[in-house]
C-alpha cells in the first residue's frame, strides 16, 4: 500500500496554489461578490490555460487526461482560495461528461462556462455566468433565470426556465454527477476549512487582550485545535474516496458519502470556531472570514448534507 500523492500531483497543486495566491486573493473574491458577477473571468482563463478546467477530460478529447486522484488536491486548493463561480461543476462534471460532444472544445478552453442542475435541488448555482446547464439527462443552452438570493456571493442561486434541451448524460467515470460533486465539494470544503483555520490562527497570534495574544488563552487554543482535528480526519477519507472513484471500487458510493459527511461537519465546526475566535469583527461584512464561512454554509448542504451522506454510509455498513 502507498497512501500518498505523486510528486507531479503535488507540484500541480502547488502551481495552482501559486496562481490563486495572486489571482484569487480575498480582494478578488470580494469583488466578484460585490459586483454581483460571482465569477472572475481573468482567473477563469488562467484556469483553462493551466489545464485545471480540462483536468478530467481524456487527452484524446483535448484534455489533461487526469483522474479524480489527480483532481482532488486541486479541488482542495480551489476551496482554500474560495474561488467563486462554477469551477467545480465545470471541471468535475460538465467538461468530462460532455467531452464527446460539440461543446468539448469550448469547455476545455473555458470559452463556454457550464454549471449543473442536480435533481434534488430546485435551484441552480452559478446560472448567471453559465451558458451551458447540464442536468442528469440533458444540456440546456437556451434558458432564462431568476435570482433567489443565495447566501454565498460566490455561489449565487437561481431558478431556471429552460427554453429547449438536448439529450446528454452527466455521468462521469460511471458515477452520477451528484456523487462526483459530493466528492469535489468535500475536497473543496477541506480547503475552505484550512483557510479559515489559517486566518483565525494568524488573528489569534496578533490580537491582544489582557496584555497577551488571545491565542495564549486555553479556551482559544482548544477552539482552534478542535477545528483542526475535524479537518485533518476528514482528509484521508476524502482522498480515499477519490481513489475509490478512480479505480472503480465497489465501495465508491459509501466512500464518497463518508468524505462528504465528514468534510461538511468539519467545515461547519471550523466556521463556528474561527468566527468565535475573531470576536466582534468575525460578525462583520468587512472581515474576509465571511468569504469562506458562507461558502462552507452553502456547500455543507449542497450535493447532500451530512445527514444524507451518513445514511448512505449506514445503509452500506449496517445493512450491506
Amino acid at each position, binding site marked *: 500500500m502507498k497512501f500518498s500523492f505523486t510528486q507531479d500531483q503535488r507540484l500541480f497543486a502547488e502551481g495552482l496554489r501559486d496562481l490563486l495566491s495572486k489571482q484569487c486573493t480575498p480582494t478578488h473574491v470580494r469583488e466578484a461578490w460585490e459586483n454581483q458577477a460571482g465569477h472572475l473571468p481573468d482567473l477563469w482563463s488562467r484556469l483553462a490555460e493551466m489545464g485545471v478546467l480540462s483536468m478530467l477530460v481524456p487527452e484524446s478529447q483535448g484534455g489533461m487526461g487526469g483522474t479524480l486522484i489527480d483532481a482532488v488536491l486541486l479541488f482542495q486548493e480551489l476551496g482554500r482560495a474560495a474561488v467563486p463561480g462554477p469551477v467545480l461543476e465545470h471541471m468535475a462534471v460538465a467538461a468530462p461528461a460532455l467531452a464527446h460532444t460539440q461543446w468539448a472544445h469550448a469547455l476545455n478552453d473555458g470559452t463556454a462556462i457550464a454549471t449543473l442542475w442536480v435533481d434534488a435541488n430546485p435551484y441552480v448555482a452559478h446560472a448567471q455566468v453559465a451558458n451551458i446547464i447540464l442536468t442528469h439527462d440533458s444540456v440546456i443552452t437556451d434558458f432564462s433565470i431568476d435570482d433567489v*438570493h443565495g447566501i454565498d456571493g460566490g455561489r449565487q442561486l437561481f431558478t431556471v426556465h429552460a427554453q429547449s434541451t438536448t439529450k446528454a448524460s452527466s455521468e462521469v467515470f460511471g458515477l452520477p454527477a451528484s456523487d462526483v460533486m459530493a466528492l469535489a465539494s468535500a475536497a473543496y470544503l477541506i480547503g475552505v476549512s484550512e483557510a479559515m483555520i489559517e486566518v483565525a490562527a494568524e488573528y489569534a497570534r496578533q490580537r491582544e487582550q489582557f496584555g497577551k495574544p488571545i491565542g495564549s488563552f486555553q479556551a482559544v487554543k482548544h477552539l482552534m485545535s478542535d477545528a483542526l482535528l475535524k479537518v485533518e480526519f476528514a482528509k484521508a477519507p476524502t482522498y480515499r474516496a477519490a481513489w475509490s472513484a478512480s479505480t472503480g471500487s465497489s465501495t465508491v458510493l459509501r466512500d464518497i458519502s463518508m468524505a462528504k459527511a465528514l468534510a461538511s461537519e468539519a467545515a461547519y465546526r471550523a466556521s463556528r470556531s474561527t468566527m468565535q475566535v475573531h470576536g466582534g469583527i468575525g460578525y462583520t461584512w468587512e472581515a474576509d472570514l465571511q468569504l469562506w464561512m458562507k461558502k462552507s454554509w452553502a456547500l455543507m448542504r449542497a450535493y447532500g448534507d451530512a445527514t444524507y451522506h451518513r445514511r448512505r454510509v449506514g445503509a452500506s455498513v449496517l445493512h450491506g
Partner: protein
Amino acid sequence: MDLNETAQESAFRSEARTWLEANVPTSALPSFDTAEGFALHRAWEKKLYDGGWSAVSWPVEYGGRDADYIMWLIFEEEYYRSGAPGRVNQNGIFLLGPTIMEVGTQAQKTKFLPSMASSEIVWAQAWSEPNAGSDMASIRSKATRDGDEWVLNGQKIWASRAVWADWCFGIFRTDPTAERHRGLTFILCPLDLPGITVRPIAQLDGDTGFAEIFFDDVRVPVANTLGEENKGWAVAMATAGFERGVSLRSPARFTEAVKRLIHLWKTYGDPSDTALSDAVTDAWMQAEGYRLHTYQTVTGMLEGRTIGAEASLNKIFWSEMDVRIHEIALQILGPEAERMEGPSQRWVDGFLFSLSGPIYAGTNEIQRNIIADRVLQLPKGI
C-alpha cells in the same frame, strides 16, 4: 411551591394578549438595522408606550405598570406569542433603565426614563473599543473635566443600532493615573453633538447593524454622569448583569422559536429520521428548561436574592441553545437554507444572528472563565 398562575397573573396575561392581538402590525416590519425599519420600530415602541406596555416592569410614574418579574415574564410570553416586532430600544428599556433606577439621581430618573419608555430617545451601548473587547477594563476613551463639563475623546466600536440611535451610554477613563477597573466613569451622551462621528459597520448579513463612534472633544454636562465619578466599572457591571441575567433574552424568545421549529418539522421533517426528531425534542427540552430556570431565578430575586456570576450560566445557555435551534431548522430546510429570502429567510437571518450570541454581551469563553473563577472558585487564570 405552586407552579400555577395566580388569578392576578392570569388576568394580566389576558389583558396583554388582548391588547397585543389588537395592535401588533399584521406584517413583519423591515429590519431595524435599516433606516426605514428603525423608524417603523420606533413608531411601534411609541404605540406600545401609549398602551402602557413598553416597560411593564418599571414604576407607573415612569410609564410602566409596576409588574414584578413573574408578570414581566408573562408579558414576554405574550409578546413573543403575538409575533410583535423586535425591541429597538432594548438597550435603554432593559439595560440602562434599570441601572438608572438603581444608581441614578432623581433628576436623571425624571429626565431620562419617560423619554426612554416612549422611545423618543433610543439608546446605544458604547462599551467596546477596538483594543478593548473582552478586556473592557483596558478602555482608553477618556473624559476630562472642564468646569461642569466632561470633554470626551476616543473611539468606541460595535455599538449596535448606533447608526440611528439618539444617545449612547458607556464608560470613559476619567482618572488617567488609575489602572484598569479604577478611574472609569459611566457617562450618558447624545449622539448628535459636535465632535461625534458615527461610522456605520455592515454586519455579516450586509445590514449596518453596528457603528463605530468617534469622540473628538465632545462636551457633555457633568450631570450626565451615572453613579459616582471614577466608580463607573461597578455601574457598568450592574448593567452587564442585567444583560447576561434575565432581561436581555427572556425565555419566551426561545420557547416561541421552538414552537416554530416544531411546526417546521411537522411540515417538512422526515418522521422516520429519529436523529432529527430527537434533536427537535431536545431543543424543546432546552427551551423549557431555560423557562423553568428563569422562573426559579426570578422567584429568588423576588425573595431578595441577587444574581451575580450565575448570570454567566444563563448567557451561555441561551446563546448556545439559540444556535442549536437554528442549526436544526436549517437542516430541515435543506436546499432552501442556502437562500437569504423566501420561506427560509427568517430562519437563515436568525441563524446568522444566533452565531453572534456566543460573542456579544461578553463572549462565552469569558463567561466560562467567570463561572470557573467566581462560582466554582477555581484558582484564577488571568
